[in-house]
């Protein structure tokens, strides 16, 4: 009797979710896998030609797709490092005895509330017009020139803008971790004579390991999938030097009308992101368990 009752509750809360999840995620995903075996331009009245695994085979000789994969990996590595270091530094700063900590928290979090597209356009102005103006005024044209016209600097610009956007959000997660550390542990460490760095590395870091897991996961998957900032800041240029995975897929489907081929790319993209993030989560999870 009792068991039946809990099963009912269980169903009440999970079934609607399962229904929605399968309707908007699982089913379209399966249909998407199906489309990836066709050569099709996305219009129902136009012919779908079954090509088997040809889309997947072509993908590996698609040099542009591979280059965009390289850019994405490069971008992701730099962005993850920068976002997490800054996010953590901000978190430590606003949990210390800083007077303006509440105002600082709000201001650091604010960029995350601005949409990526708008952010991209704002920074586009900064990197082109404002940088040039500063360069002309100060004579430091070695640093202040139009960054978006230089393939390397455009990628750096992309890293800077996404860091600016994400760091505040990551900070919030680290703050919750740091606030969760019991005061007595810290006090005990101080009584034992531990300095700032010792407390940080020996006490705080091990105890906020779960936050590391979440933050690394969030930044990793978000950076891999970056699209909005990419579109508005550089549009993939100059000469494709900043075309990321998601943008390459978007172009394939919506500009070149290769719906099936683009779909195949999207599936491969999904597998790559899923495998990498799962490896990351399992590694950091392991460390969590060991240290606790």
């Amino acid at each position, binding site marked *: 009797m009792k068991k039946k009752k809990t099963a009912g509750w269980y169903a009440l809360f999970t079934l609607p979710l399962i229904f929605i999840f399968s309707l908007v*995620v699982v089913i379209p995903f399966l249909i*998407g896998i199906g489309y990836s075996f066709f050569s099709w331009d996305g219009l129902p009245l136009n012919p779908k030609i079954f090509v088997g695994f040809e889309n997947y085979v072509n993908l590996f000789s698609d040099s542009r797709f591979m280059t965009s994969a390289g850019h994405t990996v490069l971008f992701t590595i730099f962005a993850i490092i920068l976002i997490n270091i800054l996010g953590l530094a901000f978190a430590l700063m606003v949990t210390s005895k800083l007077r303006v900590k509440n105002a600082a928290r709000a201001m650091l979090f604010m960029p995350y509330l601005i949409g990526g597209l708008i952010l991209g356009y704002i920074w586009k102005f900064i990197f082109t017009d404002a940088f040039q103006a500063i360069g002309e005024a100060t004579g430091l044209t070695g640093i202040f020139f*139009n960054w978006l016209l230089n393939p390397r600097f455009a990628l750096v610009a992309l890293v800077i803008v996404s860091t600016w956007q994400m760091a505040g959000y990551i900070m919030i997660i680290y703050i919750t971790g740091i606030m969760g550390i019991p005061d007595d542990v810290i006090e005990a460490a101080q009584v034992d004579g531990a300095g700032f760095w010792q407390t940080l590395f020996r006490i705080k870091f091990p105890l906020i390991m779960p936050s590391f897991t979440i933050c690394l996961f969030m930044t990793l*998957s978000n950076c891999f999938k970056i699209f909005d900032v990419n579109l508005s800041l550089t549009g993939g240029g100059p*000469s494709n030097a900043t075309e990321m995975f998601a943008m390459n897929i*978007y*172009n394939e489907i919506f500009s070149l009308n290769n719906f099936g081929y683009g779909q195949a790319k999207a599936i491969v993209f999904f597998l790559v*992101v*899923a495998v990498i993030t799962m490896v990351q989560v399992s590694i950091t999870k392991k460390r969590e368990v060991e240290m606790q």
Partner: protein
Amino acid sequence: MKLKKVTSVLLAAAMTASMVLAGCGNSSSGETKKAEDKTEAAKETEAPKADKVETEAAKTQSGDDVESAKKIILFQSKVEIIDQLEELAEAYEDETGVEVEVWGTTGDDYFQQLKTKLANNQGPTVFSLAPGAESVQMTSYLADLSDISFADKIAEGMGNEIDGKLVGIPYTAEGFGLVYNKSLYDPSKVTDTDSLIKYLEEQKAADINGLGLSSESYFLIGHILNTPFALQENPVEFVQKLGAGEVKMADTPEFQEFAKLYAAIRDNCVNPLEQTYDKEIGDFATGKSATIHQGNWAAGMFADYEMDFEMGLAPLPLAGNDKLAVSVPTAWYVNSQATPEEQKAGKEFLEWLYTSETGTDYLMNKFGFIPVVDGMENENMDVLSQDVSKYIADGKTITWPMNEWPAGSVDVYLVPVAQEFFTTDMTPEDFLAKLDEAWAQASK
């Protein structure tokens, strides 16, 4: 503990899955799925009416006595005329009692929006497309308009015909070339590539931008690259041969001259990648640029400036070219997937637009179109449009083979090459080789 670990990994996997799915191209497959659902739902709701519909359908096939619908939906890409179009819709309702709903667009993603709407069976009754690659791709959605009354009055080559059937009614003619400042540039003296390059060098010495381009894809390379294509004996065939790899741009004289000119622009003019359309227009209007590569569509942009010189539109003198690139940028189409009633109403609307007094008044005076149907005249054209009609009247026009280029090729393949050219010291020969390479990929 073990269980907790497993569940957390699974949870993470599920989150990744949902995020990736939400983030990337899969959303489009979701939409298609929705479309299918809708179609089925629509079929189901139609089912009870089926008996009635059958008799009506029989009538449709036997003759033209279908009643036209009381409402049509209009969706088109020319953002400049949206306000006037809405006025026109009201005027049409006043005169005929048929409601016209005008859907807005931002312009850039019009074609994608249209495709999604048509794929969802929520398409508009009347819509616009660029005749050429776009209309060929959409062929199965285009109704036959051959029976429209003014069909034989459309200027030669301006109506969009596919498989011998008229499907598209042209909006207007548009022409592009060099918009020039009459006090700084004299088209009669600059007649070929070499004299143009020399002119650019002279202007640089005088601290004036000789030829302005801007960073938007068509203003950067799309339009200007159209000229060497159009100068080929048979441009459409040339596009096909180029796609098949039978000819190369690098071996074609007109393209070699084009690359030389492009290099001269890089060496002597403002870097186009640092220009936007607005800035390009502003520089020209204030006398900082002697010429810009633009078309008569730009005339409206000059309304904000008080210019102390006269301007005109001249051909780009590449390889001795003395003709303006003129064609139909957009045409009206009727959705063949709409109900017969709606299609009929759509045709009646076009009929009214091109034959009634109010309709033609809007086309000529409010939209400022260049006449493409016999018997229409426009007396209040802007200066650039006047030049375009002059060149049309003299028969000095070349076509727009760029409408036959592979879909999306300008944005995805040609722009990156141009960007690389303007940011490095690439030689004109390397530039053509890279364009050939990009073209081969675009045509795959």
